[in-house]
């Protein structure tokens, strides 16, 4: 494990990949600290897999450089990089049994006595009893763990995971997320994980980079990205957001006030990306509450009045509402099941929420960016 003592941050500078006239990865700068669990999150075609393939060496960058620690690996052959990949479809060798699949990398590097290492890693992924089986005789989840073991046994400085859980059903995926996180904590290697599943990224990663059109939209911890999205794309792609266009009317005492369709909205200046002009205010659906239009709104909260419930789905722990605003937007509200009354479609309601839970984005953006993609990816 001496590789871990060296400083092994993965650094990408100005990394670019063009396929003909299409730019898949656009001037990417990224630094991934050693030992972290890093997720590249984005819809299909955003360039995340291409980025991963350039790090593994399976794709040559058009421009830019790749460093692992102080060593540049931009033009190093894939089989000479201290990097291993867990492929999307696992790509296990069908002619070899599980033991030989896992031992493959060690043997190619000329390691003579592989038994102890293979046994150890198979124990780590809890597959020791299946060592003699062929890959096709294993379930999807087991194959996935073989793929992880086959890559991990080489003790790479960086382990790349390309949508490793994509082929698994939901229940197994949850289980494997926890499993992968456990393995990562145990071995302490840098994991770079590519996924389109925002929940998966948030569950596992310490740091997430949201990618869109070959660029990184925002980088940060899951909490940061969720609570303070920097762009409408991140706000819509990572979970759901209610975004409403408005104009900044003033700023005092760390509070920005906004006029949104005739409503006075207040938000913390620290959470607003603009301090004048056009703004898009946002609030997450679970932070919004509904009251009947006739009831009195508690003081100190942001309020949007004149809404009409257009859809109410009761799902046990919560009720999901769609509320149509007078200006034609549909906002969503998740109300936890605390025994409150359920508003039927057609009921006139007002939305209100804690002003401190509001965030403000640059008003010049497309308010819908990232929303459709998320629906697609969620399928």
């Amino acid at each position, binding site marked *: 494990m001496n590789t871990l003592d060296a400083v092994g941050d993965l650094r990408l500078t100005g990394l670019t990949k063009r396929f003909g006239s299409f730019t898949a990865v656009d001037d990417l700068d990224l630094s991934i600290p050693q030992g972290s669990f890093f997720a590249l999150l984005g819809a299909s075609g955003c360039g995340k897999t291409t980025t991963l393939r350039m790090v593994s060496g399976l794709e040559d960058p058009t421009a830019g450089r790749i460093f692992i620690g102080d060593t540049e690996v931009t033009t190093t052959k894939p089989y000479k990089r201290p990097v291993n*990949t867990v492929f999307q479809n696992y790509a296990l060798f069908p002619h070899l049994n599980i033991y030989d699949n896992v031992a493959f*990398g060690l043997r190619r590097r000329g390691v003579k006595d592989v038994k102890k290492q293979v046994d150890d890693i198979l124990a780590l992924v809890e597959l020791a009893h299946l060592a003699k089986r062929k890959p096709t005789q294993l379930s999807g989840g087991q194959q996935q763990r073989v793929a992880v073991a086959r890559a991990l046994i080489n003790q790479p400085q960086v382990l790349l995971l390309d949508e490793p859980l994509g082929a698994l059903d939901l229940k197994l995926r949850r289980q494997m997320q926890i499993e992968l996180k456990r393995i990562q904590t145990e071995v302490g290697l840098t994991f770079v994980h590519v996924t389109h599943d925002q929940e998966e990224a948030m569950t596992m990663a310490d740091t997430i980079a949201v990618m869109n059109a070959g660029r990184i939209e925002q980088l940060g911890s899951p909490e940061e990205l969720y609570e303070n999205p920097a762009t409408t794309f991140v706000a819509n792609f990572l979970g759901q957001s209610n975004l409403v266009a408005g104009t900044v009317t003033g700023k005092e005492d760390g509070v920005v006030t906004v006029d949104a369709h005739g409503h006075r909205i207040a938000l913390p200046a620290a959470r607003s990306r603009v301090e004048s002009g056009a703004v898009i205010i946002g609030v997450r659906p679970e932070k919004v509450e509904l009251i009947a239009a006739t009831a009195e709104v508690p003081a100190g909260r942001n309020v949007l009045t004149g809404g009409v419930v257009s859809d109410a789905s009761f799902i046990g722990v919560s009720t999901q509402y769609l509320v149509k605003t007078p200006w034609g937007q549909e906002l969503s509200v998740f109300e936890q099941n605390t025994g409150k009354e359920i508003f039927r479609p057609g009921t006139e309601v007002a939305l209100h929420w804690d002003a401190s839970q509001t965030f403000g984005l640059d008003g010049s953006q497309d308010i819908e960016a990232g929303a459709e993609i998320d629906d697609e990816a969620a399928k």
Partner: protein
Amino acid sequence: MTTLTEAPLASEVLGEPKKRRNLLPYILLAPGVLWLVIFFLIPIITAVSASIQTGSLDMGFKVTWNWANYSSTFSTYNTEVVHSLIYSVACTVICLALGYPLAYFIAFRGGKWKNLLMALVIAPAFTSFLIRTIAWETILSDHGTVVRIMTDLKITNLMDHLGLITGNHVLNSPFSVVFGMVYNFLPFTVLPLYTSLEKIDPRLHEAGRDLYCSGYRTWRYVTWPLSLPGVIAGTLLTFIPAVGDYINAYMLGSPNTQVIGQVIENEALRDVFGYPIASAMGVILTFGTLAIVLAYVKKAGSEDLL
């Protein structure tokens, strides 16, 4: 009691369609079995029986358990048997050496041209085997352009030294015989090879490169073992017809390159006493090939070839 008497009745009623359903597989098998009996089993038995007979066309043949037919075959025609073996093995090896890179290229680099390229590989088969071989006889003749160029480039000299041809005569040599066989049988090697290579997921190559394999080592440890079924099928489909082939030796060879097929033809058609000898050689060819193939498949099936 009523239930007991009713029960067999019910099964009798159901028995009728059940019986017919059981017969169906045999009915479907019948034409194939009949074909094999008439065109395979009976001829084999006839050949084996003829191989131990004595007599002549005029007097008629009788089974006399004359095993001497076999021993005399070996002593008289051992050169031809050896020729058949050497030519067919050489043909199979050369076909594999030429066919593997070709199939590999089409399968992994062919892209949208894959099907067209494979069609080109098979295209010559649309012309008769005989006509193609006669065409080579003309192309390789002493006064043809090919031989003139080969002579000018001193290639004929080199081949003469290697004992592949005699002087400047390319035709009627072991070289031209094997050349014709390779030309005629190459598609039989390429087709199964292509099929098995094409099935290999290119992502396995990437996995190989990711796991410390250079291009050659990826081929050696990933592609080659996965293409082995195609290699075995391709070499068998080439070797089996090649070992019995005599058209190439007849058209492109000389009396010095005779193969077992030619001897069988001579014995059976030209020699009034030759029927049993021809049969004995046919039996040797059939079962000899079978033995070689079985040994090869057994060897190839184990990990020895890997």
